[in-house]
């Protein structure tokens, strides 16, 4: 199979998933409550309700309403978010960059720390570094992320303050008391570079440390474990033995011959970790008062704000599907065996 055919087939396979995702969010949003509540207040007279129902197509059969729902989504008419007091699309535009920035920082941290840890663990198998790494990774998988975030906050914000050390901020994206910020793209690191504002850049970076670390730790654990096992798998291959028997140094064997092949499964895991990062963002943002999608979604659910819940669930599912798609495509490019197999 050619690469082009593979891509087309993979894209076609994503279509039923997308339709299913839309159907599930539609059904769930109907279960939250009668959608008529979106258009009425407690002062709406009872007699007006059938009229409103008809006006918004709510008296039509469900499958027709599903098409209305799809049409509204396509037209960018995602409704009004009561919990954010503005349109859902505007809310997403405002909050999405915050979450993505946090997730990216977490991901970069996890990749930068996770891959070397995995390699270390594999090359020093069953020795002290391996055991230490394994404990770090297992703790990451078993740790409640919200608790980890709280403990970090306790240590680096409160205890450091008590001890008179330079402490890290407890939450928020920047110190709005000291630094002024006018949004351009809402990616604050990017904005601060665009406006050549080093103070804002460092302020934002400092605010990103704790949430980024808390959020990235789980991904770090997953990447480390995957890297270790795939590295061990690769190190058993014949070509590694050949490379060693040629008298190549260990460093060259590991980084030049083994690493590239061991990276293939790890790339998949990195892509799939995106879903985990979104989940973690919900919890981390709640603790660090991060003005992102996660915090908004929690508030939306607690207030039964249907369009917001719907939009958030859809958005996350689409990001997840897209990440899976990209991973599969990269996988197919990296490893021809997948395409032909």
């Amino acid at each position, binding site marked *: 199979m050619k690469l082009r055919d593979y891509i087309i087939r993979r894209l076609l396979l994503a279509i039923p998933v997308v339709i*299913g995702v839309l159907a599930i969010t539609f059904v*769930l*949003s109907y279960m939250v409550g009668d959608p008529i509540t979106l258009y009425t207040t407690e002062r709406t007279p009872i007699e007006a309700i059938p009229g409103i129902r008809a006006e918004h197509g709510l008296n039509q059969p469900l499958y027709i309403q599903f098409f209305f729902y799809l049409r509204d989504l396509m037209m960018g008419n995602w409704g009004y978010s009561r919990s954010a007091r503005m349109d859902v699309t505007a809310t997403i535009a405002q909050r999405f960059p915050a979450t993505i920035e946090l997730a990216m920082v977490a991901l970069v941290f996890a990749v930068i720390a996770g891959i070397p840890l995995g390699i270390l663990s594999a090359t020093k198998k069953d020795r002290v570094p391996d055991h230490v790494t394994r404990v770090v990774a*297992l703790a990451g998988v*078993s740790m409640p992320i919200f608790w980890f975030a709280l403990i970090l906050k306790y240590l680096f914000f409160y205890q450091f303050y008590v001890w008179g050390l330079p402490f890290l901020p407890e939450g928020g994206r920047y110190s709005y008391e000291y630094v002024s910020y006018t949004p351009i793209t809402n990616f604050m690191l990017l904005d601060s570079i665009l406006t050549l504002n080093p103070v804002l850049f460092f302020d934002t970076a400092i605010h990103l440390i704790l949430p980024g670390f808390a959020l990235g730790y789980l991904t770090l654990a997953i990447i480390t474990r995957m890297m270790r096992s795939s590295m061990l798998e690769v190190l058993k291959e014949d070509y590694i033995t050949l490379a060693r028997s040629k008298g190549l140094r260990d460093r060259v064997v590991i980084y030049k011959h083994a690493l590239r092949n061991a990276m293939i499964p790890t790339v998949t895991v990195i892509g799939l970790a995106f879903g985990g990062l979104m*989940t973690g963002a919900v919890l981390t943002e*709640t603790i660090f008062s991060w003005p992102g999608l996660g915090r908004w979604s929690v508030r939306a659910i607690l207030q039964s704000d249907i369009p917001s819940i719907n939009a958030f669930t859809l958005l996350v*599912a689409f990001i997840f*599907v897209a990440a899976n798609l990209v991973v599969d495509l990269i996988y197919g490019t990296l490893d021809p065996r997948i395409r032909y197999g």
Partner: protein
Amino acid sequence: MTQEDTWSAAITGDLQTEEAPSSITAFSGFQIVVAIIGMITGSMVFINAYHLFDGGDIPLVGVLGSFFTIAIPTIVIGFLLIRVGLDLRKLETYAFSWVIYGNLLMGLMILLAGAVFILAILFNLLAIALLFVPAIKKYWWDLFKEDMGPRAKESRYMLHLIRRSPLVIAGILIIAVYILLAVFAPYITPYGPTERNWYETMRPPGGTHIWGTDQNGGDIYSMVIWATQIDLKIAIAVVAIALVLGSFIGAAAGYFGGAVDEVVMRITDVFFAFPGLILAMAIVAALGEKNLDNISIALMVVWWPTYARLVRGQVLIEREKLYVEAARSVGASDVRILVFHILPNTIQPVIVQATLDMGGVLLTAAGLSFIGFGAEAGTAEWGLMISQGQQHFMNYWVTFYPGMAILLCALSFNLVGDGVRDILDPKLRRR
């Protein structure tokens, strides 16, 4: 006392402080005796189950077993039908109230259970006695060996491998400790799960409160121990039901193939398109009320596709094997082949996955509880305790101990799951 009564009483100043209900619900001596007998019986049943049931030639067991498996559900369903009927017709008299029927049902259940216990004890004693007769012992042993021989050998080998991996042993021990804590919570905690002492709020660890108290004066140690019951119950219930549901759907999909398979797999694809916690959040929102039952339901909905996929894959491998062909050639029905021949051979990876998922479910349930979708305020539940303590994170003990409880519990499940997976993996075994 109504609200207004309370207020007027408060104004006139003769408000009586309500007597806190004794929170340590100690069991009566009778219940303890029954429980101990039950435990002994249970272990005896397990020990002797092979001999009695695999022998297959003691008809009484089958007869009694089927009697009780029919009788108990009949009573429960009949009771529920009466209740639903009464509710529908809006009848509410004492004679048909929950109280009296509940008591009646409990009485019947105790009678039946007692009968089962006694019969089981008698059977086991009989079996043990018969074991002293050499001929019968040899006969049973032959039957056992013929039926279970290879499997027993395999499990002995696995036990040997498990015994050699310290991490798995550590995990199993920690899980056992957690279960013991959950069972004996009433006896090892000085305070009840909802007991509050308003004069001792935010006490640091030490003294009478060994792990301190929270902002409402609840004893952290007692609450953490009590919460073990709730959290383990959620994790076990979710994993068990997701496992059964997912396994059967996946097995059917894998065995019958074709359109069924295609539809089921596309459905699981859709479920996999959502990260677990977020789909669970949406489902809890859709279910309306935010309580532990709805969390459990949401998590079951989220988790079944994992098992469906896993079992389907296994069944696809197994159904091509010769023993399935053999069973089919002697005329076994599809259901029989699937349930009695294929499913037992797919169980190992499912068990590993279930162990690993226990940790995942625990963490996700705690996360849901943390963002406010779980138990009502004041319940002793780990996630909720952390959630309520997050404003007071400066007083580390309020959040530290419940979090450690979650961490250790999830860690031990992960240790066991990981270790057992490595043991079961023949690729790793050969090394």
